[in-house]
């Protein structure tokens, strides 16, 4: 009997653990390749630091981590329930 269309959707091949494991390995390989490509390129730095090995990789990663941390910290102070303004509107 052919599988029910709903079953196919619920157990989609893309969300199976095996696929996700494969995606992680594939992704990490590509990451490594982009950094290794630096070995074959002559750097043309504008400022010095941007000529260091794998600069764009570590700089991108670290600044992204910093931005997530910064957002998290700001969220501690400024986050409110998403009904915040509705509640204050209701008091009109």
């Amino acid at each position, binding site marked *: 009997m052919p599988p029910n269309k709903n079953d196919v959707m619920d157990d989609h091949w893309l969300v199976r653990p095996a696929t996700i494991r494969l995606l992680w390995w594939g992704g990490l390989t590509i990451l490594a390749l982009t*950094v290794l490509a*630096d070995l074959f*390129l002559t750097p043309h730095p504008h*400022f010095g630091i941007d000529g260091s090995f794998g*600069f764009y990789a570590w*700089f*991108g990663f670290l600044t992204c981590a910093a931005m997530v941390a910064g957002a998290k910290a700001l969220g501690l102070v400024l986050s*409110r329930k*998403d009904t915040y*303004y509705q509640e204050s509107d209701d008091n009109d």
Partner: protein
Amino acid sequence: MIDALPPGMVLIFGAFILPLISRAMRPALLLALPVVTMSLIWNQDIGHSLNIAFLDYTLTPIKMDALSRLFATIFTLMAFAGSLYALKQKRIVELVAANVYAGSAIGVALAGDLITVFVFWEIMAVASTVVIWSAGTDASYRASMRYVLVHLFGGVILMSGIIWHVGETGSVDFQAMVADGPARWLILIGFLLNAGAPPFSAWLPDAYPEASFSGTVFLSAFTTKTAVYVLLRGFPGEEILIFVGLYMVFYGIIYALLENDMRRILTYSIVNQVGFMITGIGIGTEMALNGAAAHAFTHIIYKALLLMSAGSVLLMTEKRKCTDLGGLFRTMPLTMTCGIIGALAISAFPLTSGFISKSMVAQAAADEHLKMVWMFLTAASAGVFLHAGIKFPWFVFFQKDSGLRPPEPPLNMRISMVFLAVLCIGLGVWPETLYAILPYPVDYAPYTTGHVVKMLQLLLFSGLAFFLLLPLMKRTLTITLDIDWFYRHAGVRIARILARVFGRAIERAEAKMDLGLATVIRLVFRHHGPEGALARTSLVGSMVQWVVVLLGVYLVLFLLV
């Protein structure tokens, strides 16, 4: 004859014909208007201008140069794509307003004098307010009122600046200025307010996501990008714009990271992207200005594409929060693919339109040896992938299985998404087509091996950071307070307290006044009321009697004297 017709007017007048014709004819007119407008724009030669004497001034509704043509072209293209997407929109008022909005944006882009700029600027404010308001919900009504207040306020600042400037210089010509006095400062502030610059950035993510599924697509294109245009023409190389732009870049990223509403994420990223353009305008070299202009062009396309993808999800699921969405790739593969192409373009992936435009701004910073600016821009480029490039597709189409199985949106919406997706990739693969219509000659090759490898490193490691830090980015049912808190919350509270305090004093004063007034009224009533001595009606007989008496007195006096 045709040369004397400002192209934007085609959309503005055409819009008002829409409600008058039959429903079956509307799609044809909606799609024909931008096509006619585009042909008018491209039939006018560079250097063509139209002058009209008005009072003591000469107005210039058309002044065609490369910069004007670039923006008029992208606005018209957007009117076409947006109309195609909105063909099934039942609220005709939104379509009328959206076309007037697009037409007036083209009006600003082609205006050669400050008065014409201001007139179209204000028409845009009103038309865009109607676009938000026509979503028809209570939230959209409130948001549209907050939106119009901010923009009318900005309009007053701009008008004060223009009047002051014209008074000082005697000229209404719209040319490059330097912020060297209060008149120019006011103009600059008026322009920046529409760009979503600090401190008034909050109007944008507050209002745009409250519009209908198609309304937000129109809104994303015109207001902020006309602001970029007027800044490009009016204040190139104004150094403060570098700082304003960098602030906007990071404001957009941080707030988008905290956001849960999918379309609000994308509107925060409008502020972020406009920040790149404004930084470029602040740097002010030909490379930077070309970069800002090119980025405005590509941005309008991919941001509209992203919002079309989000609008399709909203229309088909009636859900807008990341916490409610997820796993939609199963049944909306085309919407997902188009959304991902838009996301790759906004992130400036090689072979997409963002790659060939944004890198010009960063290159300009490097050429000028602005080390810190360059570092911030590079970090922000990574941040764009983080907050929009992965976050939007991930939380909407993947993330978890929300159990939602919506079908793809109607055919016209799918076609318009594919149209813009093709443009995103086409411009990325053939950048010469865009470079050829930029304001300055382009001496820049985006596709060097080094540049492609660097960009891939930056973006892919930003992606790695996203997935490693995913637990920190779990979506919550929250919003993030912004400057608008002061007028949405604190202002209301203060107004209430003032009303209470002064209300009592006013009541007391009124009571006293009532007493005084009552006395006056009684007095007037006694003499002039129906029974008052001065208001009584008299008989003709007694009138004659009184005349006789007066004549008698007159006679006696005459004899005596």
